[in-house]
């Protein structure tokens, strides 16, 4: 059962990720990414991480991807035109990806001592998780909440219309001209 579920949802993951690369419209890429994230939630459940599976669905597939689709629709992002990209990306990036993937795969396939995962393994309950999170790691947890607060303030400050700027519909994007000049 574990094997079947793993193969099915790993397949979903890989199909979604490849589809993300192949689609030219950002909204289709966003929907593929949602497929990847929900299948990853099932894989977390198979590995006994029940809280993280729920958090993955709520935080990633819910909140973050809603933000992404919202921005795609707000900016009316159209079809992207494919260009060749930079020379650095082609000459260094792709060989590096292949090399890293090859090294990791070789190490993993030759590794000894890695166990197996089955459905009989125990799950990490939310109680176990919160016991460590709120006793040993309380300070990092609180620091992260400050980080989130600062990020929210930064997002608001970045995204809001500046006071001195004219409204967006009066800005001329093509030529550079002073606002108010006829």
């Amino acid at each position, binding site marked *: 059962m574990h094997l079947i579920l793993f193969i099915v949802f790993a397949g979903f993951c890989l199909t979604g990720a490849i589809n993300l*690369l192949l689609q030219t419209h950002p909204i289709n890429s966003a929907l593929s990414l949602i497929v990847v994230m929900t299948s990853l939630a099932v*894989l977390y459940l198979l*590995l006994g991480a029940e809280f993280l599976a729920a958090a993955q669905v709520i935080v990633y597939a819910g909140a973050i991807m809603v933000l992404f689709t919202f921005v795609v629709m707000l900016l009316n992002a159209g079809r992207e035109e494919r260009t060749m990209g930079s020379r650095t990306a082609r000459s260094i990036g792709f060989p590096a*990806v292949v090399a890293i993937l090859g090294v990791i795969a070789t190490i993993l396939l030759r590794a000894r001592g890695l*166990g197996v995962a089955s459905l009989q393994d125990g799950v990490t309950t939310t109680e176990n998780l919160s016991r*460590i999170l709120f006793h040993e*790691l309380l300070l990092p947890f609180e620091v*992260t909440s400050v980080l989130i607060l600062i990020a929210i303030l930064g997002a*608001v400050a970045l*995204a809001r219309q500046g006071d001195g700027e004219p409204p967006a519909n009066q800005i001329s994007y093509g030529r550079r001209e002073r606002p108010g000049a006829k």
Partner: protein
Amino acid sequence: MNSVFTQEVPIAWYLLLSAVLFALGVVGFLIKRNLITVFMSIELMLNAVNLSFVTFAHQWHAVKGQIFVFFVMMVAAAEAAVGLAIIIAVFRARATLAVDRIDLMKL
């Protein structure tokens, strides 16, 4: 029939899946020409690393690995909020999302 339901999956397969997802994220980062999809590729890489964390937490029966994933999720949420706000600001200033045309800081 019974053997199908009790079969186990090697931990290495999970790690391999994570590595492949990470590589796909890097490839997406390199080939995508839209600012938002480039950002999505970064999220894909973060998710691939999270899968590694959960897998190793299962392997070594260490709960702290899962807590690390929790922190990565929080940082990813903050990063998505700030990153998308920056994308909106860039779009407002340059009226484009194509990364080839956002090259003001290029040498």
